[in-house]
């Protein structure tokens, strides 16, 4: 479809149809290419696993993620201690000690259950921040590109200023203003991510604003809002999806960093970044409490990065395959 834009006369188009066996669409092609890329498949498998854990966390967890086990007599009697290393019966851990496959944390909670509960948070963090940034970024970019003139200038210069800060530093500054907490951290990361999306949308608005099909619409008296949402924005969709997927990876990393610094999720919430931050001084004595949340964050970020890279290649019509 997009590769054949030169062939516009009806005869050629029908000839084209008879040659190819089934009509191809950008999305179907993209999915085919995506499923052919090994790294994208790895990303999708990781993401599917994460989704599974996030959806069925109540079934997978063995203990309550927030309540210390001090009040459970059989656990205390069996000698379960704080920051115990992983104990898996199958791997030779004595039967009389209760099984905690990822050990216990500094507040005598089952670390595995906390890790399982953390999966949903990392996904919620990634999707809400990027969703927020895409919605606001799209609006700002569309208004800037469509209105032009001083509106465009004011909006885009503001975006330039925001891009002039290293993103984590600006989010730290915003959280300082709003006060620590998960919601505020998400808001900060969302705000900081806006410029990326507004630039993408503005660029595609500018590229199709003067196109014939838009002029035709305008001549027919179609409302500006309709032109924007039905004609212009669909053109911005592919770059937005790619940037959004990669943006989720960055957002999860930044949120984990804020939580690690104590500015994001607050204890006892089982969020990986804050779990890591809470036990960071114990890395020499109880390394498992640092190791597992970090690995989990890394795999989550990796899955979005691989998927985003794969989608960029799959959705790029310039790559000849």
């Amino acid at each position, binding site marked *: 479809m997009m590769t054949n834009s030169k062939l516009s006369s009806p005869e050629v188009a029908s000839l084209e149809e008879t040659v190819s066996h089934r009509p191809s669409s950008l999305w179907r092609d993209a999915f085919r290419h995506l499923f052919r890329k090994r790294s994208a498949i790895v990303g999708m498998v990781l993401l599917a696993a994460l989704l599974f854990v996030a959806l069925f966390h109540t079934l997978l967890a063995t203990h309550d993620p927030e309540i210390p086990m001090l009040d459970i007599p059989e656990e205390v009697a069996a000698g379960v201690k704080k920051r115990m290393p992983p104990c898996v019966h199958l791997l030779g851990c004595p039967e009389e000690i209760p099984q905690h496959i990822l050990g216990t944390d500094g507040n005598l909670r089952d670390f595995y259950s906390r890790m399982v509960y953390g999966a949903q948070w990392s996904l919620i963090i990634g999707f809400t921040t990027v969703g927020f940034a895409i919605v606001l970024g799209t609006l700002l970019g569309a208004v800037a590109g469509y209105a032009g003139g001083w509106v465009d200038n004011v909006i885009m210069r503001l975006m330039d200023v925001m891009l002039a800060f290293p*993103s984590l530093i600006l989010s730290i500054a915003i959280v300082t203003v709003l006060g620590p907490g998960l919601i505020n951290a998400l808001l900060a990361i969302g705000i900081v991510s806006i410029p990326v999306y507004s630039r993408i949308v503005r660029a595609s608005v500018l590229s199709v604003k003067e196109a014939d099909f838009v002029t035709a619409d305008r001549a027919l008296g179609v409302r500006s809002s309709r032109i924007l949402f039905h004609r212009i924005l669909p053109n911005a969709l592919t770059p937005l999806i790619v940037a959004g997927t990669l943006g989720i990876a960055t957002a999860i990393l930044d949120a984990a960093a804020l939580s690690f610094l104590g500015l994001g999720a607050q204890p006892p919430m089982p969020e990986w970044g804050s779990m890591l931050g809470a036990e960071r001084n114990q890395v020499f004595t109880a390394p498992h409490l640092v190791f597992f949340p970090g690995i989990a964050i*890394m795999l989550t*970020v990796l899955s979005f*990065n691989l998927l985003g890279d794969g989608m960029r290649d799959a959705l790029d019509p310039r790559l000849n395959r």
Partner: protein
Amino acid sequence: MTGYVIRRLLLAIPVLLGIVFVVFTLVRLIPGDPCRAALGERATDEICEPYLERRGLNEPIPVQFVYYLRELARGDLGDSYRQGRPVTQMLVERLPVTLQLSFFALLFAILVGIPLGIVSANWHNSGVDVATMITANIGVSMPVFWLGLMLQYVFAVLLKDTPLQLPPSGTLQAGVIIPPLYETYEWQVSGAVKTALDFLSKMHALNALFSGNMKGLADALRHLILPAFALGTIPMAIIARMTRSSLLEVLGLDYIRTARSKGLKEWAVIMRHGLRNAMLPVVTIIGLQFGILLAGAVLTETIFNLSGVGRALYEAITARDYRVVEGFTLVIAVLFVTINLIVDVSYAYLDPRVRLQ
């Protein structure tokens, strides 16, 4: 070229003013009044009134902004609420540590990233390529703070009592002192020169090198390895990926085929013809890494107990020392803009096409 540089400088001015405005606004938006933030929650109105009066904090916000610009123009970032010292003084103490750390991290990233990218592009789709790209993908996905903590555990606990044992925190071992250059060489200095040498003396590795103190240099470098590795891993991965894709693109061009058909050796084609053009986007990417380095410094310095700008920023936030947060954020952003400007200009120098746009 001069015209281009001037144009870029002029374009940077509104961005810098914007940064000042954003930082100013953010700090004014902090809930609670500055007097009680500085003097404590139980400060009475009788104490607070003169305090606010003296600092012009009773004036309307636009007037305050003008005062603030005036202070900035004098190079005054205000005083720390907690320590009662000028923020600029803290900055002079803290900045060298961050600069040195960032320098070594970037050095590591470039020295490892570019060769990895070249190898990967040269043996495209081979096992080496796949392995490099897996490493790079994992590298960009790792949280910096986690990598730092794990490095500490591996090199200070697991490898304890082996030659590979490395110190997990600090900048120098207890007992190792590297005095400023003017003490080493018994120079008589004062004023700006002394400040500059004091600034330099906080960069232990450089200072030791100039003093000819090899034992101190070795110790300073040993302390730098882990934090520089932790901080440099993400930029390294990004540089490797960029070098690979850029080189692959260039190697598919006609002039490379011409070079090959002339009978040039393959390494000459890649190193002399391919790499020179492939490096342009890599230079841009390297420039953009400073933002990652400065942000990563907050985390790395906190973990490795280095008293740099990043950790000072973190400490100021936890202590609600807003003047310090304001000043340091401003300086980091201005540094970032300046470095990007330098990158843009050097890019124009390397690629004449950019100047014409």
